[in-house]
């Protein structure tokens, strides 16, 4: 698992780990707000996604959160483990609870946050 400081974050509470493809998940803050996740609806492998647009859903016992694509590109892998066991989003949001991998084609959005900026956004503490 990449150290939390090395991740980029969005205002919609996703985290991104860069690599050959970018790995995307939601933060512990978002998972905590949702409560127990019971279903994840992820875009299929091969789907083109556009930064800032809804590409899936994360559903908890009490509410449904939209999953926004943080980057523009193509979905190259989805996490089957989390489809089978959505509770991984709550128990390990930055590790086993990762959601999709995107091969980035567009330029990186200019409004990604670093960890410090994300923590200020959410009022969290290290």
């Amino acid at each position, binding site marked *: 698992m990449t150290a939390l400081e090395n991740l980029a974050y969005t205002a919609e509470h996703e985290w991104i780990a860069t690599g050959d493809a970018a790995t995307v998940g939601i933060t512990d803050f978002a998972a905590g707000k949702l409560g127990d996740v019971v279903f994840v609806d992820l875009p299929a492998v091969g789907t083109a996604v556009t930064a800032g647009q809804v590409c899936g*859903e994360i559903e908890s016992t009490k509410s449904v959160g939209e999953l926004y694509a943080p980057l523009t590109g193509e979905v190259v892998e989805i996490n089957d483990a989390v489809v089978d066991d959505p509770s991984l989003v709550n128990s390990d949001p930055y590790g086993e609870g990762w959601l999709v991998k995107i091969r980035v084609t567009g330029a990186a959005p200019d409004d990604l946050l670093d960890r410090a900026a994300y923590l200020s956004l959410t009022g969290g503490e290290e």
Partner: protein
Amino acid sequence: MSDPRTTPLHDRHAALGAAFTDFGGWLMPVRYESDLAEHRAVREAAGLFDISHMAEISVTGSHAGALLDYALAGRLSTLTVGKAKYSFILAGDGGIVDDVIVYRLAEDRFLVVANAGNRVAAVEALRAAAESFTPPAPEIGADNSFAAVAGKPVSVEDGTDATALLAVQGPRARDVLEATAGVEFATPAERAGDPDTDWTLDDLPYYAARVGRFDGTHVLVARTGYTGENGYELFIATERAGELWDALLLAGEPLGMRPAGLAARDTLRLEAGMPLYGHELGRGIRPAQAGLDRVVARDKDAFVGKAGLEAADLTSAPVLVGLVSEGRRAGRAGYDVYRGEDLVGEVTSGALSPTLGHPIAMAFVDPSASEAGSTLTIDVRGTRVPATVTAPTFYRRKK
């Protein structure tokens, strides 16, 4: 709009890491750690709920029973002392103002427990009924003094602010109460004296209530609940609520009891087929639509809502059904229900059932679509999910 109120146990919920929500004007714990873990605890061991937001309204007087016969849908004057009854406050047109549980504490004393969000409406309805109510003519007895003939006047008092309410629900609820330090069902003096006042939980059948004590303070122990499990609801003065909560938790945690919030409370009552005001019950719904016409004692001479119910033609009014689906995507309140391409109704409550593992829902549908076994579909955020009509109870505990 003023800030939501907090219960006497607010600081304890915060210390336990609870997430809060505004419910009926009160800041209530929605979950502590996990809705699912809390739900499971109630089904397998026990859950401890702070439901102090509920309204407690005392109705007292020599003719309190007759007043409640007039003010409520059911017949309360014949309720035995120490028993409870589920009822409705109806409006003149027969629509439901609130669903309540009424406890008879004495010949001339009733406790009406109403929903937090309907507290003002419930108190007003009971007071209005008291004003327009004509007590039955008194019997002439040996004592013909004015006071004896008139009896003690009816009084409607809102005791919510002075009363806290905790619920212990689950198969081990009884073990928890019996293990809780300070909880007694009769004083030593009572036990030594009158065997009738030395009661145990054996003496408390379902829908009954008796006064016990917690460390010297009266506690009304009611065998009622909203989860489909065995359980008890404990009414105590606000000042002692914190200590009672602490004592229950101390005794209950080794037995598997967890504090449980409103999220778990909602999935539990939905599984058990229990209606929630604002979803399955409301001002525009008449009892028969929700399958609860039996709550209404239609043969009473006069009661609020009688004329409205008699005049209402409900043949094409939407009726409440249960819906079960496969998969994991649940219909939720407000989602449309279809038969083929025809819009036939709307979901009132829905969730992925933690106990059953599949989606369950309650919905109001056109009577033509209400036959058990029918296949309807629910529009779940753009996807049509098939659902089978059932009776609106999904879980029954093993006896």
